């Protein structure tokens, strides 16, 4: 038993503590100090309470002690003994942050940075002492003079059994403390006919000889002290009688007036209801294995196709079913990587709360579509761009309360976060009802920064200037939205995810930024092409068209290689086998296939040997075990188990057009 290592529970303790803190933070942000909702307060209290209990049990005494003050304060609040003001909510938020810090340090087995926590601990304590400085000096503990033993009188109330207690158990335990001589008093026992079997009629006198401490004896009666008459006196007679009755009397005297009902609290949303945690590595391993299964299935299919139709028919049916099941399994497994957008949205109530307070603005946050699912890696990567957009809206979009009232608007601004599925994409919107973009100022600033622009540009074109590199610069960087990151970085990051950013704005009514993202980073729609003996994948999204050129469409331009004339445009022509330095059957461009690709507004003709077909491919990293290769964005595994490389069309276009321009 002593062998139970509490460490085995640490992981679960930390996970649930962090979840508890998240819930606490969300509840605090939801809390209306003027009319605190009882269940919300109860939820906050329970989170602190569980962390304290767990921390104490699992050996984190300092955290338990820190949380104790927080819990006590929350307990007074939920019991209605203390009014709550906005400053309290703020203090509680900071207290939960500090608690998070302590827990993180404990989890990582670091020494905690205590200064902030200590300061907040002091604040909480001070806040508590505003109320009755309770800590009424507990009566000095009775001196435990060594006695020859104890004379115990134990007379249970008749209803003792109803609490599940059993006098015999107590007497048995008493006998383990020393030499016990027990005599029973049965004076209260009625005639058998009148005997109620559920009533306790007996009382006991016990002489306990030995070195047992008084506290150890009293401890055995702790559960029943209110349900019995109990006297514990030193055997060497003449001890203080008062002491013997002190415990129940004191308990009765200090029993506090009952606090406000905290009866049976209802329905705390438990986010973990139907989910379990799985390490990403396990999911990825599963995805890899399912990929293998798909390939094996394809291989069996190829073999079966070669069989004589008569014998092959049953096999073919089985394989068709295997094919369906495999695809379904693959889809199901891929979906395990999807997480609700809530994982990112959940951080914004706090961001908005803190930022609005710092900027002295009143802002309310609405969000919708939190359950929309997105690939986990994408979730991680949009968090920063989204945070930037939210900060921007609060800093530059939403006006101060005074300015809003003057403009005839609600003093409290609204920031809306929306997520939704839209035709194979995920659309995320960050909208505010602020002052909107200022066309004249943007044009002036762009001109000043040397960004190409003119007054005749459409609104949409003017808004795009914001995304130009160098538009946001030091002058307008506040400590809120600054941090040296401009909208150009936001745009670049989102494009790197295969997404797009759009912006709409109306003077005086607000600005909406719309981000469109692919469903997943793990799969791409690709065109497989043959280049010599190798197969490459070109992302379908980059392909404009493909054609078999006539000889007169190909021109050789001095010192610039070849160009292809396609619909009156001259496009630089790149032969992929040359580009990748692969051995290939030399053939003229007009005997090959040209795939016209476009990236970053520039077009290029790629020469390949043949088009093999369209397919969705699972993107695999080359960098895990090898390294990044210029012009290659990753690899995938073909139906026959071979590896095909995925061309990085953006990079090829960039390098090729630069070479052509040079």
């Amino acid at each position, binding site marked *: 038993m002593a062998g139970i290592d509490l460490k085995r529970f640490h992981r679960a303790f930390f996970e649930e503590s962090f979840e508890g803190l998240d819930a606490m933070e969300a509840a605090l942000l939801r809390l209306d100090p003027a009319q605190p909702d009882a269940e919300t307060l109860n939820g906050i209290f329970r989170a602190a309470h569980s962390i304290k209990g767990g921390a104490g049990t699992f050996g984190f005494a300092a955290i338990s002690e820190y949380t104790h003050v927080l819990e006590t304060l929350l307990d007074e609040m939920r019991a209605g003994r203390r009014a709550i003001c906005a400053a309290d909510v703020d203090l509680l938020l900071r207290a939960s942050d500090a608690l998070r810090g302590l827990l993180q340090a404990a989890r990582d087995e670091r020494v905690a940075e205590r200064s902030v926590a200590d300061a907040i601990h002091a604040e909480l304590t001070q806040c508590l002492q505003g109320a009755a400085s309770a800590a009424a000096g507990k009566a000095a503990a009775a001196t435990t003079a060594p006695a020859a033993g104890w004379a115990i009188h134990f007379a249970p109330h008749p209803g003792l059994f109803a609490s599940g207690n059993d006098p015999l158990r107590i007497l048995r335990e008493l006998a383990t403390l020393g030499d016990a001589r027990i005599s029973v008093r049965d004076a209260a026992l009625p005639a058998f006919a009148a005997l109620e079997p559920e009533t306790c009629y007996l009382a006991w006198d016990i002489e306990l000889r030995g070195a047992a401490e008084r506290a150890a004896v009293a401890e055995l009666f702790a559960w029943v002290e209110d349900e019995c008459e109990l006297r514990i006196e030193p055997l060497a007679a003449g001890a203080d009688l008062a002491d013997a009755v002190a415990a129940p009397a004191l308990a009765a005297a200090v029993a506090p007036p009952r606090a406000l009902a905290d009866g049976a609290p209802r329905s705390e949303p438990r986010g973990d209801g139907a989910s379990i945690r799985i390490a990403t590595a396990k999911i990825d391993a599963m*995805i890899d294995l399912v990929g*293998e299964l798909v390939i094996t299935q394809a291989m069996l299919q190829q073999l079966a196709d070669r069989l004589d139709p008569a014998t092959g028919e049953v096999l073919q049916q089985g394989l068709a079913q295997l094919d369906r099941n495999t695809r379904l399994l693959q889809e199901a497994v891929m979906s395990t990587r999807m997480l609700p957008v809530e994982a990112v949205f959940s951080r914004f109530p706090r961001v908005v709360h803190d930022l609005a307070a710092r900027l002295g603005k009143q802002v309310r946050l609405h969000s919708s579509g939190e359950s929309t699912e997105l690939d986990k890696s994408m979730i991680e990567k949009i968090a920063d761009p989204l945070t930037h957009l939210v900060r921007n809206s609060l800093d530059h979009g939403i006006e101060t309360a005074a300015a809003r009232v003057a403009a005839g608007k609600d003093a409290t601004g609204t920031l809306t976060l929306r997520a939704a599925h839209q035709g194979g994409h995920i659309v995320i919107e960050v909208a505010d009802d602020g002052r909107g973009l200022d066309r004249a100022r943007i044009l002036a600033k762009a001109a000043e920064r040397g960004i190409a622009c003119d007054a005749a540009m459409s609104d949409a074109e003017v808004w795009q200037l914001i995304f130009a590199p160098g538009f946001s610069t030091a002058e307008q960087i506040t400590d809120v939205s600054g941090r040296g990151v401009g909208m150009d970085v936001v745009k670049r990051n989102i494009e790197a995810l295969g997404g797009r950013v759009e912006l709409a704005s109306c003077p005086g009514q607000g600005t909406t930024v719309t981000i469109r993202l692919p469903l997943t980073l793990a799969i791409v729609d690709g065109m497989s092409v043959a280049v010599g003996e*190798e197969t490459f994948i070109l992302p379908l999204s980059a392909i404009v068209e493909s054609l078999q050129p006539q000889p007169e469409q190909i021109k050789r331009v001095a010192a610039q290689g070849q160009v292809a004339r396609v619909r009156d445009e001259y496009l630089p022509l790149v032969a992929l086998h040359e580009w*990748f330095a692969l051995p290939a059957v030399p053939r003229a461009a007009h005997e090959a296939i040209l795939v016209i690709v476009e990236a970053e507004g520039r077009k290029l003709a790629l020469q390949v040997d043949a088009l093999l077909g369209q397919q969705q491919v699972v993107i695999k990293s080359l960098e*895990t*075990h*090898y*390294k990044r*290769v210029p012009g290659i964005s990753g690899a995938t595994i073909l139906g026959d188990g071979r590896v095909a*490389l995925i061309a990085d069309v953006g990079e090829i276009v960039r390098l090729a057009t630069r070479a052509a321009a040079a």
Partner: protein
Amino acid sequence: MQAPPSASPAASAAVPAAEFLTFTLGGEEYGVDILKVQEIRGYDTVTRMPGAPDFMKGVINLRGTIVPVIDLRLKLRLDDARYDAFTVMVILSVGQRIVGMVVDGVSDVVALDAGDVRPPPEFGGAIDTRFITGLGTRDQRMIILLDIEKLLSAADIGVLNEAVAQAA
């Protein structure tokens, strides 16, 4: 997947013995630390990598993971690099990375005490001694022990240097 050939009886010597997987390259017997060997496979088609040196044969699909393959015979500048029924790939796990290595055939697993290993002599340029940790002797056979980390970092496989530094 094939398990490595069964080990020879464990050495009972007082000095803790290290075990090596031995294989042949151009008529010589080489050895690598068995703890770095993940598995042994037959030689598959590899997908060529653009712009890679000749010893970098390309990449293969190892149960869904893309793994680079180097031809040790080309890396060590042994002239006879044939691909036949005996050609195998030894899959090595070094630090966080996995790499395939083409060799002429796997022979055995041998345990060598510290006393069985001598420092590498000067070869005078015939062979690259940078990648050799020592020469082991077993039943009159000479086994050239390879320093696989050094070999792979010289093969310029991404941040392998870093991975090896962490593993060390």
